[in-house]
């Protein structure tokens, strides 16, 4: 499924969070959305999965605006893995994944064998087929994240949206999760913090800065020292990963890795909002 985002703008409390952001995610590709804290990554994704209604602009999937679809209609095509993981539930892993079938069910419809097949297949794909009966709360962070990916898969999505799927995971689990997403073969867009992980796994990168796309393209085209310095305010060098050959960003170096001026310029819209 092709995702197209045009001219998204959204402001809250006088702060412009999105300022004409635009991107496309072609069918079958894995797109990474990178940018500093507060650059609007989550807000952009929330516009895509129809929780946030932008002031102007449109996010559309296969040519249809997400607000022209019903919440249920969109949920049948688009699976979302949120940044916040639910805690404090008494659900089993299977219960959680089965919820992914909800958008396909009528009010009183029972779970069918087909639903359970979807659940089994989804758990299989994230490598947790054996944990179905475990309590969700007892899983590790990495396992929980994979369960939530399985729930999104159980929706039978043609597009996956993931908001920082690797936060709070150790490095091994970060790789595992991204490897998994890449291997699914589903069109996916993920907000990512780690530029090197983004470079290693994504087909295309979009760099968001103060609510607008600053640069986009293949990782090796986008991740240049100049861009990283100007967007993140840190000195950087870009080399090659010795094993994968992918671009690898080295930050810092010199007397001070942090370019003091970048923060004075106001890299964070939350801070540059109207003075109180």
């Amino acid at each position, binding site marked *: 499924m092709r995702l197209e985002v045009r001219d998204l703008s959204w402001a809250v409390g006088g702060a412009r969070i999105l300022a004409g952001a635009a991107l496309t995610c072609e069918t079958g590709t894995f797109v990474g959305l990178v940018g500093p804290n507060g650059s609007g990554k989550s807000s952009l994704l929330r516009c895509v999965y129809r929780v946030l209604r932008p002031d102007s602009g449109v996010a559309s999937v296969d040519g249809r605006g997400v607000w022209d679809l019903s919440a249920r209609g969109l949920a049948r095509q688009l699976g979302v893995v949120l940044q916040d993981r639910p805690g404090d539930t008494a*659900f089993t892993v299977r219960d959680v994944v089965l919820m992914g079938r909800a958008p396909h069910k009528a009010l009183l419809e029972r779970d069918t064998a087909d639903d359970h097949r979807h659940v089994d297949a989804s758990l299989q794909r994230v490598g947790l087929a054996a944990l179905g009966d475990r309590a969700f*709360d007892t899983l590790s962070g990495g396992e929980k994240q994979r369960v939530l990916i399985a729930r999104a898969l159980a929706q039978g999505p043609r597009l996956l949206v993931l908001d920082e799927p690797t936060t709070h995971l150790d490095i091994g689990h970060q790789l595992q999760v991204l490897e998994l997403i890449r291997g699914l073969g589903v069109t996916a867009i993920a907000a990512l913090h780690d530029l090197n992980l983004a470079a290693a796994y994504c087909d295309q990168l979009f760099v968001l800065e103060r609510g607008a796309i600053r640069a986009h393209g293949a990782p090796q085209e986008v991740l240049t020292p100049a861009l990283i310095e100007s967007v993140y305010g840190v000195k950087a060098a870009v080399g090659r990963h010795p094993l994968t050959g992918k671009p690898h960003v080295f930050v810092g170096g010199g007397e001070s890795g942090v370019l003091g001026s970048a923060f004075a310029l106001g890299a964070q819209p939350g801070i540059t909002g109207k003075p109180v």
Partner: protein
Amino acid sequence: MRRTPLWLGALAAALVVSATAAVMIGPVSIRPDVVWRIALDHAMPGWQTPSWQPFEASIVWDVRLPRVLLAAIAGAGLAVVGATLQALLRNPLADPYLLGTSAGAALGAVAVLLFGAPLLGGLSVPAAAFAGALASIAIVYVLAWQDGRFPTGRLVLSGVAVSYLCSSVTNLLIFRARNGEQARTALFWMLGGLGGAEWRTLGLPASIVVAGTAALIAFARSLNALSLGEEAAATLGVDASRFRRLGFVLASLSTGVLVAMTGGIGFVGLMVPHFVRLAIGADHRRLLPATALAGGIFLIWADVLARTVAAPEELPIGIVTAFAGAPFFLWLMRARSRGGWAA
């Protein structure tokens, strides 16, 4: 999961056994077969050959059975409301009594008892209780909401504040009542209990609790999704805010009509869903029916205790449920501060 029908069957059987036992127990003991034959005699007159004493028929049919049925209805309704509020607010301490919903309903009911509202006739007390319940739930909702969720501390404090406020206004109304007779009626009603159960007043709470529970079971998938979080629910196609409003109205309806009938009975809605969750898990499609059955069983036995422990005196049933509930509440708070849900 496959054990679910077994659990529901066992609970349904336990409910029938409990109801029978509760009708048997009292100052005059009545044999179980007599209980059933008297009940059947009223259901299908002429089918049974009367072999019982007229006073036995009167005790079973006029006194004990309506009371046991009211206990079952109230227990089921309060427990389902508790489970629903826990999912809607995503907070395991949610309960109509703790959140002030019952106190709001009581305020509405007492206001009508004292000042009257002849417009709706017999429905005016339950209607006022419903309005009070809905208003107090709305106030707690607004007070406790913070950054997209209901933190436990804020929720409980808001509930307690609303509860105290409603209770003090209720007491003020009674204190200032011109008519001593009405004040006594209101005070007696405030004590709560199932003693006022009569066949002719059972219909309303029964139909509201059954219809409300059925509606909530129909929406169980949405309750499941919402208990994972507002945004998660939205991405699963659930309109969280609209569904939450619907849930609050249904919860207030049951709470209102039950408080109007029985006064405030605490802790049923808190405890029962937690025990059921431990046994069969959190999926509301099984949790809600099982909670309804378990709540009915719990309140039937609480009422048996209330009327037998200090016989011939009768304890207010709220004392019995609080005796079990308060320690449970403390235990749950401690368990939660260690990071678990209820286990």
